[in-house]
């Protein structure tokens, strides 16, 4: 008799209806396929703000043995083969954004060096390319210094050198979890995470608006079905679709095509994904109730998706963001999902390590679900 009883068979039946709706929409199916294959594949081919194939130009006014050795010192994959240009072209290329670095070797460079006069090299950095500028400037300097030192060592090869050969304290650096620091490993999984978020928001929110525009939503309410049941049905069905698509993408595209070894427990990650989907599908419904028409929903979606993708730590590290952004992004499910994904998939972290993320996702999901349900009930003008 109570108005708040929940019938799970209704949730199941309505969810199956959602699945049928999706199955009969070839455009949406095609786009889901595209998102989890082409987008993931293409997205991993980029390496945000890292030194990879970094374009560098050299203005060689010395034309000495040393300057040509410097030219050869910049090697792929970090750098592209340096382009030898004159001073004018260097300016032009920097202006056009073609080169990130330009190294200018002054005349009489080698001679000054050999004479012990400490010559000065000029390194121009395009600081609009923040990522490359930061890590790259130091790297270029080190390559130059090493090469110069090696040049000095080779010149005095006959005489055994005391401190030119090896440092007194060696620093052995190894990268854990991704020894090669491969961007594909990182990028592919972050792409999957981004697509999961985009799709789950879109499928639930837009489907809700479509139902309302067609009047089928109202019709449900003359039946013994409650808004809670309708919402739960949308959450599980659309969540399931995205979960299945993401799993297939991880197995076939990421593991298969891109050959990324997944170290951690896939089931644990998928459990986290399910929880994340609970939060994002609820958010999608919330956006659907707020936007009221498709054009507004499209805009709102962009407003939400962009910060979620860009500030969640999947592009730049969270630690580098201003504190207020870090704090604000704590309420975004993506933030925790990204931490969880990195922990489980790269570092083989177990539940003992990532339980806080699970907890966060559950809390955020419940909060979104609660708010969405309240709004959903209000927009339908019905309780129960």
């Amino acid at each position, binding site marked *: 008799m109570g108005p708040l009883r929940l019938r799970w068979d209704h949730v199941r039946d309505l969810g199956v209806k959602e699945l049928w709706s999706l199955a009969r929409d070839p455009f949406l199916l095609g786009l889901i396929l595209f998102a989890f294959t082409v987008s993931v594949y293409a997205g991993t*081919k980029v390496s945000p703000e890292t030194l990879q194939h970094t374009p560098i130009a050299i203005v060689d006014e010395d034309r000495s043995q040393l300057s040509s050795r410097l030219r050869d010192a910049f090697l792929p994959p970090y750098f592209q083969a340096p382009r030898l240009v004159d001073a004018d072209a260097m300016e032009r290329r920097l202006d056009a954004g073609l080169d990130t670095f330009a190294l200018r070797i002054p005349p009489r460079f080698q001679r000054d060096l050999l004479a012990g006069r400490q010559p000065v090299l000029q390194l121009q950095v395009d600081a609009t390319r*923040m990522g490359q500028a930061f890590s790259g400037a130091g790297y270029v300097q080190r390559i130059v210094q090493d090469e110069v030192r090696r040049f000095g060592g080779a010149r005095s090869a006959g005489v055994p050198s005391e401190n030119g050969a090896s440092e007194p304290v060696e620093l052995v650096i190894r990268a854990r979890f991704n020894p090669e620091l491969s961007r594909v490993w990182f990028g592919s999984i972050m792409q999957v995470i981004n697509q999961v978020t985009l799709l789950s928001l879109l499928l639930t929110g837009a489907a809700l608006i479509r139902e309302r525009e067609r009047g089928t939503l109202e019709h449900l309410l003359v039946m013994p079905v409650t808004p809670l049941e309708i919402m739960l049905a949308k959450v599980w069905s659309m969540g399931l679709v995205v979960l299945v698509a993401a799993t297939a993408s991880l197995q076939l595209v990421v593991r298969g095509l891109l050959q990324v070894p997944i170290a951690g427990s896939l089931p644990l990650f998928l459990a986290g994904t399910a929880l994340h989907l609970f939060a994002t599908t609820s958010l999608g419904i919330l956006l659907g109730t707020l936007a009221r028409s498709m054009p507004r929903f499209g805009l709102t979606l962009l407003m939400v998706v962009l910060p979620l993708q860009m500030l969640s730590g999947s592009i730049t590290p969270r630690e580098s*963001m201003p504190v207020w952004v870090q704090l604000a992004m704590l309420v975004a499910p993506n933030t925790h999902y990204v931490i969880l994904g990195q922990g489980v998939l790269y570092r083989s972290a177990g539940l003992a390590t990532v339980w806080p993320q699970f907890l966060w996702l559950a809390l955020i999901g419940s909060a979104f679900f609660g708010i969405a349900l309240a709004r959903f009930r209000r927009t339908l003008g019905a309780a129960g």
Partner: protein
Amino acid sequence: MSHPVVRCRNLTHRYGGRQALAGVSFELGEGQLLGLVGPDGVGKSSLLGLIAGARRLQRGQLEVFGGSMAMGEHRRAICQRIAYLPQGLGRHLHASLTVAENLRSFAALFSLPRPERDRRCTALLASTGLAPFRERPAGQLSGGMKQKLGLCCALVHDPDLLLLDEPTTGVDPLARRQFWQLIADVRRVRPALAVLVATATMEEAADFDRLLALDGGQVLAATSPAELLARTASASLEEAFIALLPAERRQRHRPVRIPPAPPAAAEVVIEAQSLSRRFGTFTAVDGVDLRIQRGEIFGFVGSNGCGKTTTMKMLTGLLPASGGQAWLLGRPVRPDDLDTRRRVGYVSQSFSLYGELSVRQNLTLHARLFGLPGSVRQARVRDLLERFDLTAVADRLPSALPQGQRQRLALAVALIQQPEVLILDEPTSGVDPVAREAFWQELIQLSRQEGVTIFISTHFINEAARCDRLSLMHAGRMLVSATPAELARQRGGGSLEQAFLAILRDAGGGAADDPPAGWAAPMAMPTAGRWPGRWQGQGGGFSLQRLASVAGRETLELWRDPLRAVLALAGSLLLMVVMGLGISFDVDNLRFAVLDHDGTSFSRDYADTLAGSRYFTATPPLGDHRDLDRRLASGRLSLALEIPPGFGRSLLRGSPVAIGAWIDGAMPQRAETARGYLQGIHGQWLRERDERQQAPRRPPGEAGRGEPVLVETRFRYNPELRSLTAMVPAMIPLLLLLLPAMLTALSVVREKELGSVVNLYVTPLTRLEFLLGKQLPYAALGLLNFLLLTLVATTVLGVPLRGSLATATLAAGLYVGAATGFGLLVSSFMASQISAIFGTAVLTILPALSFSGLFDPVSSLTGLSAWISRIYPTTHFLTITQGTFLKGLGFGALAGAFLPLLLAIPVLLGLSVLCLRPQES
């Protein structure tokens, strides 16, 4: 008479596997009025669509005004001589535009000279009685007024052929009469006008010159109404039509007979007492009182928008009442009363079932939701499929069915739980006579045999006459409530229709809907004085006037729904600020911890040096390797150092020793940066140690002599290395791509979904004019957005604008042209708004973020991504924004980036034109 206006031979049309027209031949001459009659789904709409040029001709010959409609050239040449009023009340009108604006925008599509246009608009509005409502949005008109406006829009260009597709479906009796009166008047003034009307209402057809009875895509008869009656020896056209049907279909038809109502059981099932509903200041329902008894068929008649639907929704609990009280089955109506819902079946006006579920799936889903147990469920579904003659189409989608069958399905669905009360909101509007009769058989069966109480609203007089009792509603009030016979006797002199008209006039309904007497006079004026150059040089070529009309209309719609524009402008500002501040490449405060096996001052000194830099932050030391593994795995540590035992001793002795460092490689770029920092600090520590040892022997001032050469680093364009300064000029291209593309894509697809795209098919409007007109307002909005972003960036965020603002603005103009072009392209091949949103998001976010140099210089990309980046407009606009904002460049230095932007616009526009269909298939 020279040529017939329309001549078709063996016209055949298929939708997938379904035959809509199977060899239809007929002719329509000048000045004739031909009625297409027949049940739903027999191909009436397809035929009209073909003649209007909205659908592509498949097989057979179709000549209109002496030329074949298969030829695009001819279609364009004659389309301004045709007026087409498509099915569905005002679907082709623009709901947010006012009456006058709608009319003007249609007039502009036909290149009427301005004075002529204004004259005709005024005359038409006066003739149809719409003049007092010229400032009312079309979406808020009643059905009858919508159709009048539709007629105005159709007549504004003075056509020679008028195509009306079920123009009075869903229109109340008074408005329907007026509509036909208007048509008669127009024909009197314009005797040459040929009119082709499709209708499912046989009563109307009696007044037509000739009838073309269609069934199953074939012509049953082509004759005058009188002849038809004579030939079939029938009293009414409905009977005549049924007599024409093939024997097996005819057998199924039985005339509707209503057994007398059972003696009053005196049990009131539906009751309302002074039920009211207000929306803001508007009172939709004003003090309605109702008492409906068990087993009664209670009719509800009234014009569109008079409050019928609102009343019904309040009775079902869908809408809370603002005043008064209602009871259903003896219980007060409450929205959360699930038990009452089980006992009530409701078919709403707009309910279109689940288009993506098959007929059987629709029934099964409802059966499940009403909790029918498995065995009963299957039997019940089978039962209903048979009873409503849906077995043959059980596995088809409802969207593929004719309206009549859809409506039967809706009733079947409402009956699935065997309700005691049925509330039906205009269930038969748009349903043909045969189907309607069958529908009523069902209702009578339900009422008389099964004791179901039926509350039904309708526009049809003959349906109203079948009700046990009925009430007439007008402007939110119930005017009268009686049995049909009483009503006809008291007010109509025996005719129910007359009674309605009389009551409505008394209530002042005529004031809104009655045409003024003098239609002919104002109409005669514009028709007599045909404007010079009528139809000359139109249709072909490109018309700025049509383009301006589309653009003006779009601007108005954007203006009427300002939230979209505000959302785009304010949202982009917010995103620019948040993301500009949030995305920082300054990797610092990397957490590290030391596993110190040495524990001497040397090892501590090493760790302190690291902790002293701004790049690293020390966390509590590590206990052992397990601890190290655990903390690295948790992600709370970016770097772990292991200092070996005897580190200090080896250092003193000068023997080689190694420090182990583990970097968290999960985020490669962070790891790379951390590695760079660590190496730098390590080297620095070594040198400083070296210098401390040798310091006494060295003259001061030569501390820097550790390196053989000096590398002087100049950070150009952004010397203070401020992330915000670098990010904002990169964010602007991103935002100016996504938002305008999304807005444009949705605006076109929305027209497709709502149906107003038919105007593109049947008017002289070309695809290029249509797309460009859609594009311009959003491009202008995008440019405004750019200026706003620039203003905030330079003033609030302190980003310098070192180069030429004019150059940046010019580039932004081109760029938003390309961005909106993307939207057009997506919308030209997407059919639904969801796919358009999805497509736009997928096709813009990734390339803009990844392949346009936002994070990675384009020159670093290889392979496919390099290729994409080279043609993607964002790449080039990014070069320009960075060049103008940060590098202080002017047009000269950036000219190279303009060319791709300039090319992108015609390419995208051209592709969109190619992808957009000029006709429905």
